[in-house]
């Protein structure tokens, strides 16, 4: 309806644009997906503890990275933050307002301010709608009429994301994967959100296209001052995009801190293992051609055993202990709190009873995988500590 005026944002709640002010706060955020079964009547017999007691703060205008392996609960966290899922426990406070259990109507003003970008650009666009319709959709739903009209705004947005305004009347199938993800970004930007949750936005794209989209998101984030929760499994991409990073493992944050805290001075053994597992072409790029030797020379090499345990019955105490080379008895009984470890900078928290030294610049070799151990001739039997 044309007589609907675009709603003024409820600015009185929190001073807008103050970078660094907490925008979104999650406390004890928990999501358990029930598993039914049993006999003879089906009932709840357990739960996938997808997210379990998560505390995090996203500040206005910052880019917050959420990294972890599959099943760590990062995507669930994203859906909880945007309230696409109802949390089992915990609180979500957006700009000072508790929206944990807000209903449709109460959420309406925030819906426009929190947007989401999805992994699969194919699945998230309606193939029967034109690009114009897709991008203007959120404006229509929220009854927002920007000055100059919706179409003009859409064309402007298309330009912003690197598409041509002439693409307004095209259909999604006429675009390549990267372009489709650009359409998704344009749609998320349509309502001038304050927070965008991007769930694996580039992982379905080819390397060269992935870089284009990462650059686009970076520009959007920086120039428009939008806060981002950037969810990805690719550590290098997260590092490139995020000012602060949280590492998740089995539904919990094991370490959180500024980018350099995590990538240069990690304290949690899992963060170390993750970083050491990333195959880096750069290891060779910096060394001149020729010569032999291993590329791993200057980095620690940590090879864990097996896969991540099931989130249905996570290990007691510290959840990482089953794959950790430093694990001791108390790790099984006592859950390590997320704390600032001795020697860490401010805001750098890790959840470990026995934190690692704060550097990756070492030549530690930890081999837990039995097949590797056998093949590489490690003869000792399962030493708990393998640091050399």
């Amino acid at each position, binding site marked *: 309806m044309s007589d609907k005026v675009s709603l003024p944002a409820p600015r009185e709640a929190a001073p807008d644009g103050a970078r660094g002010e907490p925008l979104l706060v999650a406390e004890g955020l928990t999501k358990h997906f029930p598993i039914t079964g049993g006999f003879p009547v089906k009932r709840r017999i357990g739960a996938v503890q997808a997210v379990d007691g998560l505390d995090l703060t996203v500040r206005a205008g910052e880019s917050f990275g959420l990294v972890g392996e599959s099943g760590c609960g990062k995507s669930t966290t994203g859906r909880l933050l945007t309230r696409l899922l109802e949390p089992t426990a915990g609180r979500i406070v957006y700009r000072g307002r508790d929206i944990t259990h807000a209903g449709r109507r109460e959420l309406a003003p925030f819906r426009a301010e929190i947007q989401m970008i999805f992994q699969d650009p194919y699945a998230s666009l309606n193939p029967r709608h034109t690009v114009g319709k897709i991008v203007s959709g959120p404006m229509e739903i929220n009854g927002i009429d920007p000055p100059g009209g919706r179409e003009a705004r859409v064309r402007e947005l298309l330009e912003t994301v690197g598409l041509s305004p002439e693409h307004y009347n095209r259909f999604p199938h006429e675009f390549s994967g990267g372009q489709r993800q650009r359409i998704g970004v344009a749609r998320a930007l349509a309502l001038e959100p304050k927070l965008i949750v991007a769930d694996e936005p580039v992982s379905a794209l080819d*390397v*060269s296209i992935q870089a284009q989209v990462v650059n686009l998101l970076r520009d959007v984030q920086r120039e428009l001052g939008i806060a981002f929760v950037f969810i990805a499994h690719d550590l290098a991409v997260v590092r490139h995009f995020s000012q602060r990073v949280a590492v998740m493992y089995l539904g919990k944050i094991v370490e959180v801190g500024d980018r350099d805290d995590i990538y240069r001075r990690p304290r949690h053994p899992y963060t170390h293992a993750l970083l050491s597992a990333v195959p*880096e072409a750069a290891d060779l790029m910096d060394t001149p051609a020729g010569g032999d030797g291993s590329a791993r020379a200057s980095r620690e090499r940590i090879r864990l055993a097996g896969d991540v345990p099931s989130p249905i019955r996570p290990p007691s105490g510290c959840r990482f202990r089953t794959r950790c080379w430093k694990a001791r008895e108390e790790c099984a009984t006592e859950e390590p709190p997320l704390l600032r470890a001795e020697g860490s900078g401010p805001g750098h928290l890790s959840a470990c009873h026995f934190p690692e030294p704060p550097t990756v610049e070492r030549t530690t070799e930890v081999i837990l*995988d039995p097949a590797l151990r056998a093949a590489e001739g490690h003869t000792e039997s399962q030493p708990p500590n393998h640091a050399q």
Partner: protein
Amino acid sequence: MTATTPFLSVRDLYVRFATEDGTVKAVDGLSFELERGRTLGIVGESGSGKSVTNLAVLGLHDPRTTEIEGEILLDGQELTGAPESALEKVRGHKAAMIFQDSLTALSPYYTVGRQIAEPFRKHTGATRREARLRAVEMLKRVGIPNPALRVDDYPHQFSGGMRQRAMIAMALVCDPQLLIADEPTTALDVTVQAQILDLLKDLQQQTGSAIILITHDLGVVAHTVDELLVMYAGRAVERGTVREVLGAPRHPYTWGLLGSMPRLTSDVEEPLSPIPGAPPSLLAPPPGCPFHPRCASVAAVGGDRCRTERPELPAGRGAACHLTPERQRAIFAGQIKPRLR
């Protein structure tokens, strides 16, 4: 075999698919060689022809819709045009393959043990009992705990990493001399990927087989392969040892790939330098150099050469580019390398 004949030699390979929209030139004149005990990495984005090439090596394309030309010599045996019966003897025996998605690449209907034992029985004539023992042994070798029990599990009862190990066990069960690994770790988590890559490398050291590793991830090849082939739009655009290609890349496409990759150590304040545009359609690839519509060096070559003339990939180290090797080196050192910091 004489020492001069390479173990695997692919010459002027063309693979074309007949589709409703026309003929797709998936592989367009590709040549490479591989020796025993060596690992060749083939890197490229989707549609570059890297997987198609390797399916052609084992003759796994549907002959009704695929046209294959060229020469594939495996240990002196010509595989293009070979009868199905001959190919069946090669597959899984002399040359085996590991696929990307172990969930779909293993049959959900049979136990892991049976799927491992099957090619062993077929190729060695072993009894059911022997084959089963072999399967248990293979599972143990790839690091599956309790192999004697897990041998009777179905693939869905395995975790993703374990399934990929089982697939490796299946591929290696007949001690193949050539192992083709097609994106073997793409579906895996990074910690598991590291285990699998190391495992492949360790197993190769034990068996001395040749490996072709197909991937889109330059990081993966950096740690695993000896030689590297970069493919774009069905053609090889650069070749060399992995140190040569990653340390001093010559082809503008390779520069683009490296510039597109964020690194754990790069300067986060600098944006990535992606390749503009998107890969070309293989139904109607651009004339001349297929990369020219996205290439920043067209001006450096000058004239219409890039648009009209197809650059050849020299034998040995080199790139399929109209820039002279000197210009290639100069541009990399002067303009590209600083940006990669």
